[in-house]
């Protein structure tokens, strides 16, 4: 546990304290902006977790929305469908209800992580484009599965989710995701991720189990995505399989690319700016999506390395360490 420095643990606590503060003053804030803020926090968690796979480990996953869907539907089953059968849960109120929601969210994350493991085990032995296709397929399977399941609301979606997502849970998830991902890649273990990305053959030849690294990154990413999915669902109070389609995955990939692959700070900023930006452009009506696409094109031409450039991008230190040794 050497890699969790005292310093960053303090910053984690500061982040959580900020989340608590936001919760306390949320009653005085404009609900509309607050909601966009919460959506931004959820997007931060999604982008940071995908960055672990796409940015740090150098794999190309297109199935992040699929993990979101697994998390959202699992948690919604526990908070919305289950209480209909179990009056004990339906009777929960206040703090215990929040605890139940946190538990449901963790279960949602766990279910997504399990899916990540099952998908990752066979497919992460593949490289590059092949993995993209497999994860794409996975996302579609999840969507079609939910669409044909009547208990989950089918294609019409599941409505009536209790509004349990609070400012505290959203911001905490974002902060904890940044903390976990930021520290993971600094750990000796996480160095394997970077080595896998930088040169897979070289990494293997020095004894890094690249498949294990990839599966690991994938599972952690899926876990966070699942929890983000749960918060997303309980914020909108309505989930529909079409919200978790291929386009949602692409949206998250765009955040990662705009932020700069492998820069936790960069993708976090990209997630916040894009969420607020898209909302602000609402009065442009049909031009909104055109401008969104144009911005991405221009940005990629002008600054292909992402918002932060190489600042904050973790580099593999295996080689230099080896030399020093």
């Amino acid at each position, binding site marked *: 546990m050497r890699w969790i420095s005292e310093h960053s643990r303090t910053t984690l606590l500061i982040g959580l304290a900020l989340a608590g503060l936001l919760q306390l003053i949320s009653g005085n804030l404009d*609900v*509309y902006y*607050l909601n966009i803020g919460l959506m931004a926090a959820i997007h931060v968690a999604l982008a940071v977790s995908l960055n672990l796979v796409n940015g740090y480990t150098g794999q190309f996953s297109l199935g992040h929305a699929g993990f979101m869907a697994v998390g959202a539907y699992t948690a919604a089953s526990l908070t919305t469908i289950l209480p209909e059968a179990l009056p004990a849960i339906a009777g929960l109120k206040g703090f215990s209800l929040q605890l139940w929601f946190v538990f449901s969210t963790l279960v949602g994350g766990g279910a997504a992580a399990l899916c990540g493991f099952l998908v990752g085990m066979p497919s992460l032995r593949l490289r590059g484009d092949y993995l993209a296709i497999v994860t794409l397929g996975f996302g579609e399977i999840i969507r079609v599965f939910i669409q044909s399941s009547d208990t989950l609301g089918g294609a019409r979606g599941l409505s009536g989710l209790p509004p349990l997502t609070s400012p505290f849970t959203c911001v905490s998830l*974002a902060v904890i995701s940044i903390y976990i991902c930021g520290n993971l890649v600094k750990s000796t273990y996480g160095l394997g991720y970077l080595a896998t990305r930088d040169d897979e053959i070289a990494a293997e030849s020095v004894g890094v189990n690249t498949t294990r690294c990839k599966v690991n990154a994938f599972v952690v990413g899926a876990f966070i995505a699942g929890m983000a999915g749960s918060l997303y669902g309980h914020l909108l109070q309505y989930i529909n399989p079409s919200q978790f389609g291929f386009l949602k995955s692409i949206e998250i990939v765009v955040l990662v690319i705009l932020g700069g692959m492998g820069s936790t*700070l960069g993708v976090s900023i990209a997630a916040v700016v894009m969420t607020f930006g898209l909302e602000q452009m609402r009065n442009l009506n049909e031009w909104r999506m055109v401008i969104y696409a144009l911005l991405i094109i221009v940005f990629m031409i002008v600054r292909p390395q992402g918002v932060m450039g190489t600042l904050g991008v973790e580099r593999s230190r295996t080689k230099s360490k080896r030399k020093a040794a």
Partner: protein
Amino acid sequence: MTLAKILLTFGATALLFVTGCAKQAETDSDVIKIGQFASLTGGIASFGQSSDAGTTLAIEEINAAGGVLGKQIELITEDDRSTAGEPANVVRKLIHRDKVSAVLGQVASSMSIEAAPICQEAGIPMITPASTNPEVTEKGDFIFRICFIDPFQGKVMAKFAKENLGASKSAILTDVKQDYSVGLTKYFKETFEEIGGEVVAEQSFSSGDTDFKAQLTTIKAADPEVIFVPAYYTEAALIALQARELGIELPLCGGDGWDSPKLFEIAGKAVDGCYFSNHYSQEDPSEAVQDFIAKYKAKHNAVPDAMAALGYDSAYVLVDAIKRAGSTEPEALRDAIATTSGYKGVTGTITLDENRNASKPAVVLKIAGGKASYVATVAP
């Protein structure tokens, strides 16, 4: 870049965010703000554009006549792009940022079901002009509708198919993605079997599909005498086209989701001889209807469909309630809407029952030569 810096940046952003969006003071009220959400783009854009045109026309008339309670009405319209997840967003914006007194919308039931809990929670009255699925108004006591509901519409079409068309075997083709379609299928089947008919084939598809030949072939093999297609206009038109291609010459029946000029544009002759239930007929000679059609034509140079008529009525019902409530205070307004009784609108006399639904007669229209003409009126 250390984690500390990352979190510092976040803290700073959060602070900006907090100071930037502290609750705005209540805006001075020399106008009454009414919000509307509609599908102005996307798969069911024709509905949204029609109902928006109707609502806008009504609000313009009211403003020209001096407004209500001595104030002008400002209508704020948001587009939900016919996309699930958007209605929740735009309705939140209307309520919390624009501070509207009431919300009008939507046509599609799925969209209204998504927005209703948000209006209910915020305590802002919502009137849906044309969502016929019963679940919409079950979301709470702030949610109203001014059209009939699917159990009634399903019953009307089942009776019509059995009694007027003399069919005893029917097939159903459902859109499983729409609450509207699933609900209508259920009630049609119930009534049709109750009065001695038999449903010989039940097939389904999802909104956005374009190929229905597999389902239609199965239906053809089951040899029905009528096919019930409770779909929205785009799919209904494609289904009609493909059915004729496969040599199925049976009449197709549908609900109010068929009512759009697009249906005739896409399907052309294929829908000749088909029937659908609707909220009003353009051929209705009554003064209210003809007057409305003339005004609508003058402004939009098109004949209004039922969604436009319902959008028009929904705005008038709301304004009538504001007038009776004497304020836009949400609870007073809710109670005033709930006691709407005998309001004479374009789509018939509107009286809201204790479940906040309007009980109104439905009309059945027959399509011939790119036009829908009146066949029968069925009272509840």
